[in-house]
């Protein structure tokens, strides 16, 4: 009767767990047309289940039940989808009432939408109303989002990939060290030689003792030339160590500064590419701390601590070799405490690392309080809440102290323990050394040089133990940096970008929906906007107008459905290239610190002066700019010349005009100015709008008079579309909005009238 799509295609991706159960149905000649997994039962417990759309009807089964719930196609059945607070629900009803409902977490939402859509089509086909359409569109196998081509990667799924970070996070810094390989190798060689030079003096104490001092005590005269040579050796080795040490410290500090700078800029560049969603969820203070102080900490670690540590390791190795070559037994006794110290370091490591991470987090808590309060200082003062904010700050500091105290208890015990072990080590060497001397195994000179070596050896070991804490600190910093670097933009660049050099500006919304957290902001939005058309978006505040605009700009990505420009999903266009076709004029125009000319040319830095002036003229900004003492060179922005709201707005219109966008977005562009200024801006806007696809949001309905169509939104859904007169005639949402505004305007007029009397 009906021609069903082949099972092979849709059936192959059904999860293993359900195949047997489904095979049993298929034996009876029922074909599976669509399916979705659900993960909640009717009492909202996590219980896996599956819903099938077959050639006969709808079937559902939970893991805990053997039997299928079956609903055969019949007139009046309807499958509806809704969601709230992160839980989606499919409800099957007929004319008499509810037949069944299934719930799932929103990860499965796209599949549910497809299922509900297919159900409608299949039911219509069953009832003979229309032939079932063949599923021609390629779908993502995971989330069922439509794809451009069959093997294109899914724009919706890409974002979920989460690669875990390894504990050896500092090694990831190699990526930034690589360009400086050459300098690093030279630095290493210098370190090697200068370290070797520092090992010469203790070695020379051996002949000084055995060939000079002890023979003298035994009555022999001092060999002056030998003494001269030995002292010269001491001086030379000290000079070599000094010169080379200076060279390598300078060189490696130079390199590490550059690595730090690269790290900082890379992080900032990456940060700028992240979507608005990321910035919405992070606090400014925290992000600033990460980029500023964390990179600095890593830099200090590389230039100071890591360098010292490398030198110390070399020193240790060389010392060990020399000691063994002199006397293996005494060397063994000397090195005995080393494993204990290593063990101790290892024990404390974990505790310290988590501790330092915690301190960092608490520290950003402290800065966050500042970042919250200082910009809002007017509100704080107006409501006389200084005391409470101070209390909040004190509380954050108290938390900081508590965490620090806990860590310091561990840390405080660490260094004295290392010192104690050092002393014990020396004791062992003395005892064993004296025993060996007494048995004529070694000379006094050997023992003295051993003591000279190991006193360095242990003093460095003590310093080395400090590397644990600085490494942990740096690793904690690196982790927080890589947290940013690893964060995949939720507005990802497409892997196989489609280029649209000549954008027409036709925009289609196909069942588009957007969720912010668990709040559904818009849903099921379908709208076709022709190239060159002007659309006015109308609705109460919170009805989803700005969200719609943000979706078009791709500040966020849709969570359901898709948005297409010229027939191509915007997620398949390179982000920057796509945005270069969009001009945006906001309610509160933001001017950067710089000249007016710079601000107008912000979107196209290569613009000529003539272009800038032409744009300013068209935006009706030319005249007021020339009235300023420095004309186009006047400084504006936070630290510059103050401009009125209308003037700033006209500069931002000029900015949008200059890039000559195909798509223009006016987000309440005139609502923050008085009506006289509005008229001027309106004139500027008329120049801007002509010939471009324009989407305008306006609170005052009168400003949308030029719109070809008005789209009325209510709670995230399109409720009415049409021209002003049609919508008024319909007496629906738009009519109500218009009436309310007209009444308000009348009231204002009356009030001013009364006052004039």
């Amino acid at each position, binding site marked *: 009767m009906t021609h069903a799509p082949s099972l092979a295609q849709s059936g192959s991706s059904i999860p293993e767990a359900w195949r047997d159960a489904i095979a049993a149905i298929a034996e009876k000649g029922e074909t599976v047309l669509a399916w979705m997994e659900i993960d909640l039962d009717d009492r909202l417990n*996590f219980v896996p289940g599956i819903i099938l759309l077959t050639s006969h009807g709808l079937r559902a089964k939970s893991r805990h039940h053997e039997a299928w719930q079956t609903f055969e196609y019949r007139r009046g059945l309807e499958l509806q989808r809704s969601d709230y607070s992160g839980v989606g629900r499919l409800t099957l009803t007929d004319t008499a009432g509810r037949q069944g409902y299934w719930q799932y977490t929103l990860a499965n939402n796209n599949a549910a939408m497809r299922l509900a859509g297919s159900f409608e089509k299949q039911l219509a086909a069953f009832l003979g109303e229309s032939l079932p359409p063949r599923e021609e569109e390629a779908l993502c196998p995971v989330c069922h989002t439509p794809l451009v081509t069959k093997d294109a990667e899914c724009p919706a799924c890409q974002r*979920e990939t989460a690669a875990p970070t390894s504990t050896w996070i500092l090694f990831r810094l190699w990526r930034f060290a690589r360009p400086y390989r050459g300098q690093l190798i030279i630095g290493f060689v210098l370190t090697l030689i200068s370290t070797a030079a520092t090992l010469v003096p203790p070695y020379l104490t051996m002949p000084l003792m055995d060939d000079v001092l002890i023979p003298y005590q035994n009555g022999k005269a001092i060999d002056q030339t030998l003494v001269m040579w030995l002292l010269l050796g001491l001086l030379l080795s000290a000079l070599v160590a000094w010169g080379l040490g200076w060279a390598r410290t300078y060189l490696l500090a130079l390199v590490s500064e550059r690595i730090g700078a690269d790290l900082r800029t890379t992080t900032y560049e990456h940060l700028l590419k992240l979507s608005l969603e990321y910035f919405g969820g992070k606090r400014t203070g925290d992000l600033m701390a990460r980029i500023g102080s964390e990179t600095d900490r890593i830099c200090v670690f590389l230039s100071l601590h890591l360098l010292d540590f490398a030198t110390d390791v070399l020193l240790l190795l060389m010392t060990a070799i020399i000691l063994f070559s002199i006397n293996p037994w005494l060397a063994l006794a000397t090195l005995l405490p080393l494993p204990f110290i290593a063990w101790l370091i290892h024990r404390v490591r974990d505790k310290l690392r988590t501790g330092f991470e915690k301190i960092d987090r608490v520290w950003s808590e402290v800065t966050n309080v500042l970042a919250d309060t200082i910009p809002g200082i007017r509100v704080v003062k107006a409501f006389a809440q200084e005391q409470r904010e101070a209390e909040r700050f004190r509380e954050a500091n108290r938390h900081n102290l508590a965490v620090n105290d806990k860590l310091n208890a561990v840390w405080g015990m660490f260094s004295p323990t290392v010192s104690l072990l050092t002393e014990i080590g020396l004791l062992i060497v003395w005892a064993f050394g004296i025993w060996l001397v007494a048995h004529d195994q070694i000379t006094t000179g050997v023992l003295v040089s051993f003591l000279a070596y190991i006193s360095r050896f242990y003093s460095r070991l003590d310093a080395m133990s400090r590397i644990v804490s600085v490494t942990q600190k740096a690793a904690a910093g690196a982790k927080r940096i890589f947290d940013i670097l690893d964060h995949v933009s939720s507005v990802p660049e497409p892997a196989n970008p489609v280029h649209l050099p000549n954008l027409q500006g036709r925009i289609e919304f196909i069942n588009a929906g957007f969720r912010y957290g668990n709040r559904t902001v818009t849903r099921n939005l379908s709208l076709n906007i022709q190239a060159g058309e002007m659309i006015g978006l109308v609705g109460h505040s919170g009805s989803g107008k700005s969200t719609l605009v943000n979706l078009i700009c791709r500040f966020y990505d849709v969570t359901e459905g898709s948005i297409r420009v010229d027939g191509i999903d915007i997620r398949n266009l390179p982000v920057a290239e796509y945005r270069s076709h969009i001009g945006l004029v906001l309610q509160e125009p933001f001017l950067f610190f710089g000249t007016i000319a710079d601000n107008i040319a912000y979107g196209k830095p290569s613009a000529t002066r003539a272009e800038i002036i032409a744009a300013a003229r068209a935006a009706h900004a030319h005249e007021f700019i020339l009235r300023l003492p420095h004309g186009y060179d006047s400084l504006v922005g936070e630290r510059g010349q103050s401009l009125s709201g209308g003037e700033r707005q006209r500069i931002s219109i000029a900015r949008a005009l200059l890039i000559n966008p195909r798509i223009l977005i006016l987000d309440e562009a005139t609502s923050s100015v008085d009506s006289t200024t509005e008229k001027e801006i309106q004139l500027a806007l008329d120049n801007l709008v002509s010939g471009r696809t324009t989407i305008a949001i306006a609170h005052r309905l009168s400003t949308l008079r030029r719109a070809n169509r008005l789209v009325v939104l209510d709670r995230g859904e399109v409720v009415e579309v049409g021209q002003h007169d049609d919508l008024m005639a319909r007496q629906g949402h738009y009519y109500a909005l218009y009436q309310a505004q007209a009444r308000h305007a009348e009231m204002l007029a009356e009030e001013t009238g009364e006052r004039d009397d």
Partner: protein
Amino acid sequence: MTELKLERDSFGRLVFTDDAGNRHSGIVPARAFPISAPDYGVTLLSASGQELRWLEQIEDLPEHTRQLLLEELTQREFMPVIRRIIKLNSYAMPSTWEVETEQGNCALVLKSEDDIRRLSGHGLLIADSNGINYLIRDKLALDRESQRILDRFL
């Protein structure tokens, strides 16, 4: 206060009849402070989102009506309660946690440390990437391993 006229129709929707005798079907109850004071204040919203009736206490309602309301509220307030953190794949974000909840085992994806919200006392509210909120009633009541994991994020 007049009695609350509330019933469930065959479509599973709540129907409220107001004092004027108007029937509102598909009404939605909502708690005003679902986290800080779940027992204080429940409002009945019409399908179009207007408040129909404010109930300061639902304890005083007749048993049957109260059950209906509670049933509907449980359906709307999906907030699994975490009993134990089984394991997680990474301490860097985004991090996937396998947890045991009162509603069964599941996996949640934490996008950022900021999605963990401290509640008064030792409670925590964790929002996952799909916007589902998971509740930890008392972090000190979790087992040691779970506490150790959590500690890294606080």
